[in-house]
């Protein structure tokens, strides 16, 4: 930790981190490091200790989610498989899930009640998986039409039935993922009245691949980010068919997460979180939420100074390639860490630089206001 900078961050030493997941009391973290292993670290004596390595996947792990109510982990991988991991007698035991893919699995997410989960894939479909007691295994139902390219992201509505799906066909869609075997019949809501499994409730177009989609805490709003450097916003209480597409000056975002019912944090290839708010039903950018590592603040800040240094030393200057931002490569995921649903106080980011950072939202905003020139 750099003194005066309000962001804790750790490097687990396992390479780029594609996704991470926290346990209930945040004492343990599961991370996937662009390999077929899942590492579980526990906070002990002021440091993260590796306590488990989950090695059942054959190819890089692409999705990870820790069900905090049931203490089960679900993972998916490029090997087309998904596993449910159950903790039993100090061992994480894998159960293979019948997702029935013929392409890589790309994303996985527990439903709010953790009685089912959804897996996205490159086979242009989503499998909704639930436990079947009769046969003691996890089976799946599949949502196919009208998805026409790789599914990149998923998010569950708080009613445990609706599922938002983002894909590479430049579309974001809201489906019903009602499974009569495990769900109570859903009530009508702003997204629709009747919700048989696989029903398409809404469909939105954007100018690039959709990288992440998220329902707001109440479930009435939807935010998603896409590769054309835009953030999109839908308020179903106003018009569930109307999408607001905010073009930004930044590099593309890879992830988005709701902080309150009126604010979201995004992050991506700019290596820095960005805060947006909904004000009078309009999505607006507020500020970048980045803090520099103290040691990196004093960098060569002009080409003239660079050339002067070269001339003075009569030698080629060793170029400092470190970025001013905390993360040194793109951010791959944001997760809520502390606070309540609808009022996130702290969130974590993980990135291709192998760092996991813990951001205190209030302190970070205050820091950014007091040091505008550094951000």
């Amino acid at each position, binding site marked *: 930790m750099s003194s005066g900078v309000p962001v804790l961050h750790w490097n687990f030493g396992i390479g780029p981190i594609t996704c991470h997941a926290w346990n209930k009391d945040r004492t343990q973290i599961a991370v996937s490091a662009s390999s077929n292993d899942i590492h579980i670290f526990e906070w002990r004596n002021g440091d993260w200790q590796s306590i488990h390595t989950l090695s059942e996947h054959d190819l890089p792990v692409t999705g990870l989610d820790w069900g905090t109510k049931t203490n089960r982990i679900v993972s998916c991988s490029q090997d087309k498989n998904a596993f449910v991991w159950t903790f039993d007698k100090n061992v994480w035991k894998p159960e293979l899930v019948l997702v029935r893919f013929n392409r890589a699995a790309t994303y996985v997410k527990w439903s709010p009640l953790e009685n089912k989960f959804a897996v996205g894939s490159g086979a*242009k479909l989503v499998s909704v998986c639930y436990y079947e007691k009769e046969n003691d295994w996890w089976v799946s139902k599949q949502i*196919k039409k009208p998805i*026409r*390219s790789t599914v990149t992201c998923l998010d569950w509505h708080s009613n445990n039935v609706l599922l938002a799906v983002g894909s590479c*066909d*430049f579309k974001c869609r809201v489906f019903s993922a009602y499974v009569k075997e495990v769900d109570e019949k859903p009530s009508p809501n702003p997204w629709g009245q009747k919700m048989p499994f696989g029903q398409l409730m809404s469909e939105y177009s954007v*100018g*690039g*691949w959709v990288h992440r989609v998220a329902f707001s805490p109440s479930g009435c709003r939807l935010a998603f980010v*896409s*590769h*054309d*450097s*835009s953030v999109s916003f839908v308020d179903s209480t106003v018009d569930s068919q109307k999408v607001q597409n905010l*073009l*930004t*000056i*930044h*590099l*593309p975002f890879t992830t988005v997460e709701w902080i309150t019912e009126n604010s979201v944090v995004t992050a991506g290839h*700019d290596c820095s979180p960005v805060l947006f708010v909904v004000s009078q039903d309009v999505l607006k950018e507020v500020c970048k939420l980045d803090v520099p590592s103290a040691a990196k603040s004093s960098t060569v800040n002009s080409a003239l100074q660079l050339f002067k240094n070269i001339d003075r030393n009569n030698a080629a200057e060793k170029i400092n390639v470190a970025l001013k931002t905390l993360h040194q490569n793109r951010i791959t995921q944001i997760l809520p860490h502390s606070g309540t649903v609808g009022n996130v106080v702290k969130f974590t980011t993980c990135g291709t630089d192998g760092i996991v950072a813990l951001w205190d939202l209030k302190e970070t905003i205050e820091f950014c206001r007091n040091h505008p020139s550094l951000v």
Partner: protein
Amino acid sequence: MSKNMQNTSYRKLDVDSFDPEQYDENDETVDTPGLGPDERAVQGFLSSNRLEDALHAALLSPPLKTKDQNVKDRATQLVTKVLQSFKNAEIEATVQKLSIEESDILMKYVYKSMEIGADAAVCQSLLAWHAQLVAKFGHGAIMRVFSGRQRL
């Protein structure tokens, strides 16, 4: 040493082309395609030396959805002509008055004009426009040229 005696021509097959649900990028062409900017209006503004009005007029109705490449190329040439009419010192002030939607369209024209094969003087001017567009509208403006499927 073993040698593969089997017929390996199957490896050249594009199996995805047999997928009945494969994504067709041209499927989205359902709206009325833009027919390109109004050349007479633009020429009128140019001859009156109203360069900013000419630029705004040239950015209307970009032919992104038409399949006629000639229409696209004529639009690109027209926009390039308008860009050439500005002095370098005027570019920054003009870019400041563009909306982000206009900027995205203009950036597509700048890249297309470079691709068509500009001579040195034209390329110099295009690079100046590109620099000012990025200064105001950031990397996002470049990304939307790369990621969009509707091309000039």
